[in-house]
């Protein structure tokens, strides 16, 4: 299935900003994160704009956005 993956901030470095990626059916958000070599802690995950857990199964045509989890100061 095809998933649009969007990356933000430093996560784009050496990767991409947005890409249409091929993944096996019934894969999870964590599968996508791991496939990109992104550490899974301190990561904001959105599925079609809404926050999701790592174990959420994605659907063909979804957009998964991954953002670094920062803080203020």
């Amino acid at each position: 299935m095809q998933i649009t993956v969007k990356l933000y901030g430093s996560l784009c470095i050496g990767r991409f900003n947005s890409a249409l990626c091929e993944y096996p059916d019934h894969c999870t958000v964590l599968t996508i994160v791991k496939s990109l070599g992104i550490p899974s802690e301190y990561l904001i995950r959105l599925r079609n704009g809404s926050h999701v857990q790592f174990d959420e199964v994605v659907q063909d045509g979804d957009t998964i956005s991954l953002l670094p989890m920062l803080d203020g100061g």
Partner: protein
Amino acid sequence: MRILSQNPVADTSSVLYRRCVIDLATGTSTQNDVPCKNLEDVLGGFGRSYQILAERRISEAYCPENPLILNIGILTGSTVMTGLRSYFSSYSPLKHSKKGLPSAMWSAGSGNFGNKLKWSGVDEVIFENRSEVPVYAVFSEGENGANVELKSATHLLGLTSHEKIMALQKEYTDAHFAVIGPAGENFNNVYMGAVVLSTDNQLKSGEGKSRFAGRGGMGSMMGYKNLIAIVARSSDKMGKITPDMRDVNRDVIKNGGSARFQPVSQGGHGGTWANIDVLQAFHAVPENNFRPKGDEDVAGLFRGNVEKDFDIQSEACFRCGIRCHNNLFHRNADGSRGALAAKFDFEPLILFGSNIGINNGRQVTELIHLCDSLGMDAISLGTTISYLLEYNARHPEQPLCDGVGFGQFDKIRDLIVQTGRGNLCAVGRGVMRLSEQTGETSYAMHVKGLELPAYLPETNPAYAFAIAGGHMSMGTHMYLAKEGKTGLDDWVEVITRQGLLQVGYDMIGLCKFVGVGMGHELIPRAISEATGLKVSSEEIVAAVRRAYLRGLALELRQGYEDDEYTLPAQVFENPNPKVTLPAFVTPEFFAQMKQKVWAVFKPEMKGLLP
């Protein structure tokens, strides 16, 4: 600090800190070792200073009876990485209840000043009364505590904060400095004066790389007391780093919390600057007075775009491996690195950038530099200016301050200069007072009289329970963006269990960018290794909680009514549809949230004040 027992919980009086009281009216000082009354005293910072403030009934900030308290945390001056913090506490000239009573405040800063103060022989200084003439205080290491002198500061008047520091360094080569800028000198018209702290990098390079204790007008309090600068002299007394301490510091660097703030080249995300990328994904970057437009204008302030014009160097506070500073340097014509332009952090970047309609990195650096040089709090100044610009946009027929508008760089620059030099009290006294003068309070972005940082109030209802700055004393400002949670119980839980514990860093002397919660095992391990004191995580959390609740109780004693625990009215009256994060902060939600939070807090607040 003298430690006579390793168990400070069983016998808090076995830990004694060195207090110096200076009567600025007479020029006399006394010192004594004060036994700690409780674990908050032991940990230090605002946990201790607020107990002193609570003993006094102060009805106006600028009065001789209002003390200015300078102290440190238990880990300041230790070998624990980031253990640099010094704290300034007083009843604030800026933050006040609608009854007109000043609120207690503290503000924290890094740099090497706190270390030097500790090594000179004192843990706490209480400045009483005010001097008739401008003075600076010098603390030098002596045989029995610090030697203290007050000297004429006439030659420092009118200098920028950086100029003051460099002038003092010529005379005191073994010292670090806390100074005020012209804003603090003009305390009657500027209530948002910052305390400006020197850094090693600044003293070595001669560049204006200060750190700031900005919130609540502690620099204005120094100005009121005619205390223009504080000099802390000592040899370097950094202890030997033991193998166990090396492990503590390794964990400071390696834990995922601090890694977020580290340079991109180090595998981090590049400091708080990177927040702009994250929040823009939700169209939640403040623009034009906290009113995101839903467009991509702020992209001009993204790191990738600013890098085209500047050399960016990741630098650090003294001996800190987190290296969160993003210092921007001009480029010379030959491509080499030129002079320092400014340090980019999220708050000043946004509040002197997109939130006042400026998305040009060069212009933002100039405004940040001006604010820093004049010695003002970037958050209070930026947020007050954005209100003024919105007022003018709403009233083109009768604008204020020469009709300055969003994006008008030259006029805004002049506004900052006039404010910092004490010529524009409408801005210098903060947004709450300005909005009460204009009669339009709904879009004045403050809570309880203190200007909001660069996180939208509609994304953080917990601002109402911050006691000393919206994001410095309630760690919930990114909760919605991070977790996406909008449930009532989620918010009550995060306020009453996690968010309030953020203030613990303003007790122990470490920087918040260590990035772990107060309940993390790293904190007691660091205290044990640095001091020998055995304190459990649970005991630390309980002490931090008491200190926070004491601050909340002190707010109520200073006249805050329930209706002041609120957000700017615009949040409820005119929600912004451009923000793509869930809109959940309705009046009903907010009222229920408050009720539940008070139900948790109020029983615990009993007995915390004298």
